[in-house]
């Protein structure tokens, strides 16, 4: 089964419940300088006197053409056959940082011992019928985890809904 973790900025408040759930799941030791694999933040900017803002939650995007996999000289990174997510075994990691140079989103990080760590999509939880910790924690459905099929269906429904709205027949209550 392939899985997709989907983020909806129109539901996010940057409350960081996802980030804390990730820290709890992965035993992140803040005092030792570690950081969680997911981060939520408020973005704000001024454009022509107008305030623009966004609420974002971000981690490894588990890219379809994940450049980190190709970049790793020791083959630590790979695509999980069971979940389709980008997972790793850092026992062979030499700390060369090629993966982090290849990643446009800054997902791979390096622990004090020089080994790479990143979000693995909680693929072992997925294999065992549980949702990724961040998704499980999001009370606002800003993060959801879908199978490949469900994701396709969602995209189609979105397209249909946009068409319906564009045709002006939306609004069951006057």
């Amino acid at each position: 089964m392939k899985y997709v973790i989907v983020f909806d900025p129109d539901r996010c408040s940057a409350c960081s419940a996802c980030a804390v759930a990730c820290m709890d799941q992965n035993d992140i030791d803040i005092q030792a300088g570690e950081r969680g694999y997911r981060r939520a933040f408020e973005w704000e900017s001024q454009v022509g006197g107008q305030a623009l803002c966004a609420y974002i939650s971000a981690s490894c995007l588990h890219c379809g053409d994940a450049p980190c996999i190709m970049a790793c000289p020791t083959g630590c990174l790979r695509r999980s056959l069971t979940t389709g997510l980008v997972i790793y075994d850092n026992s062979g990691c030499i700390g060369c940082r090629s993966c982090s140079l290849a990643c446009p989103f800054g997902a791979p990080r390096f622990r004090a011992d020089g080994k790479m760590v990143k979000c693995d999509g909680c693929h072992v939880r997925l294999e065992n019928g549980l949702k990724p910790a961040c998704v499980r924690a999001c009370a606002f459905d800003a993060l959801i985890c879908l199978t490949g099929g469900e994701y396709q269906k969602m995209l189609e429904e979105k397209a249909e809904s946009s068409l319906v709205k564009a045709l002006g027949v939306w609004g069951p209550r006057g």
Partner: protein
Amino acid sequence: MASNLDRLIKAKIPGDETGISIRHSLCDICTPVHHCGVDAYVKDGRVLKVEGTPDNPYNQGFLCTKGLCNRQYMYREDRLRTPLKRVGARGEGRFEPLGWDQAYAEIARGLGAVKEKYGPHAVAFFSGYAKWYRPIFQRFAFAFGSVNYGTDDSVCNNSGVMGLKCTVGRVAKPDLKNSRVFLGWAFGGYYSAHMAVRGLRGFKDRGGKVIIIDPKITPAVKHFADLHLMIKTGTDGALALGMARLIIDQGWVDRDYIRNHTCGYEDFTGLVRDFDLETTAGITGVPQELIYEATRLFATIKPGCINDSSSTVAHHANGFQNYRAIACLLALTGNFDVAGGNLPVLDTYIYRPAGFSMRAAHFAGELRPDYRHIGAGRFPIWDELVPEFQAVDLARHILEEKPYPVKALFTLGMNVKMFAGTDRMIEALKSLDFFVNTDLFETDTNKYADLVLPVCSSLERVDFKVYPGGYAFLTKAAVEPLYESKRDVDILFDLVKVLGIKDELLEKGYEACMDYMLEGSGLTMAELKKHDKPVKAPAFKPYVPGDYTREGYATPSGKFEFSSRLIAKYRQSHGLDPLPAYRSPFADEPDEEGRRKKYPLVLTTGTRLPNAIHSRLHGVPWARSLRPEPTADVNRHDAAARGVAEGDDIEIVTDYGRLKVKAHLTSKVGSGNVHFFHGYSEANANLLIGPHRVDPYSGFPAYKSNLCDFMKS
């Protein structure tokens, strides 16, 4: 390569193979209005991880940012491990461990000496933010013989409760699922009530209209608001009266409801005359067209409901009356006690309505001695409605010893930083003969105590809880209490024996007390123990909208009182106004205009952050990492005018004090406002707020509006 079992253990997969089991408990990091069900992943007596309990009738599997911190909260490094006895000077923080029996003996000696010399009322009992033990603690204090029992309710949610009780006899909550328009007065949701956000999402998806009234731009404004009224802090009453005038002038009033179920309407129409659109816009900073459009939406789409936000609207020197003015909009539009409006609720157990009755209030209060409590007469509305002392008067009473001395404090989880003018409270603590506090952690308050007792978290104890829909839940401890900590109630029951308190129920212990309170619910402790999840109480009866109106309201007139007869009793003696009249949030300050020139900005403390609740999570690294330093949110233009850039050290200055914090620049805070969260040991917001700035009706401190300025430090 790691073995498959190692992979499963690392991923914390529950099962026989990994030895990880799931225990159902609850989170009590924040208010009892939530106390969400927690699934604790436990292995070898240690919590490995938490999640929300999926079939909990309240939180349906979801925890908030704070609740997800439970593991690091309970294993905080500064957890108290043993009882401690002070060996240094008060405030110095030097303690020595001692055994429980020795600690109890010291308490018997300390409280006994004060009781003998000054009488039982010289021992005051006080609870900090924790609520779960309250009925037992209150009965304990009264059984000890002291009238002086107080809690953080003096500054928490009670002002709004009192406001509604004076007006219509009961608290009323929005019935969103049957509503068509939501007046989200001070609705934030995302950082304080995650389940309310889920409710509002459903409401919006069904086509409901959302109006948000908030001085800040919040995620709720961005995601839900059809209209956002960015009101000036503390001017809510003026806006409500302006809306009321418009509703009356436009003929949008529900005449039948007003004729049959209200009193004081004529006087109220006289009061709102002063609040034409122009005046209202001038006071509140909300443009006239927006006020008009919001009022039209709310008053003409039926049914509509109003958010019941206890603290943000109430925590001003004028908050009580502002709250009442808002409630009057429900009566004007006939939205009180109708489906889709605001429905009256009664608490079942510890501030939580669940649709069945328990005898908790009776159990807690029946032994109350008849004596003049701390603060009596200063806030008569409080005295009428709350069987506790108003704790904002505690420091004054201790220091002045008027009308009689209070020489000992026995407190559960007291947080001295709760008190506006914390320095004054500290001075009072230093002057005591004897002071005992309990807590989970090393705290600023403990430093002034003679004895400190370690208590455990909700995951380490048996706890009783009710949830809406008729549910009751007796939790089982997910793990044993850490170190030598105990449940607060077990300390109380131990002390009943040690102090020789004569009360049949308290002498019998926890289960007997709970069974007494449960009588009539159809549940018993024996039955509850058989379940490890919430169960439905046989006595549950869903509320039928209109029932309360049919039986007559619990006010002196039996009606919705635009003009409160209870308040009218104190018109002469205390200058209180039975009508919800508006005055400036700074009208209590001498020379308001002069002060506004000196301090042109308004400081609001306590605006919710996702990662904090009072001081409880400031010491939890996961939570703290999300906002590592005490930081004020300031408007970009105000910052620019003062040469302040993002991340700069600034000093916030009020008439009462100054505080060094970091600046975060934003456009989400309106120009003229400064927002700063409270509870930091190194930057205590309550050193900026004078203890004299209280609402004369409720006694509540003006946490949300103080004149200030800031400058680069």
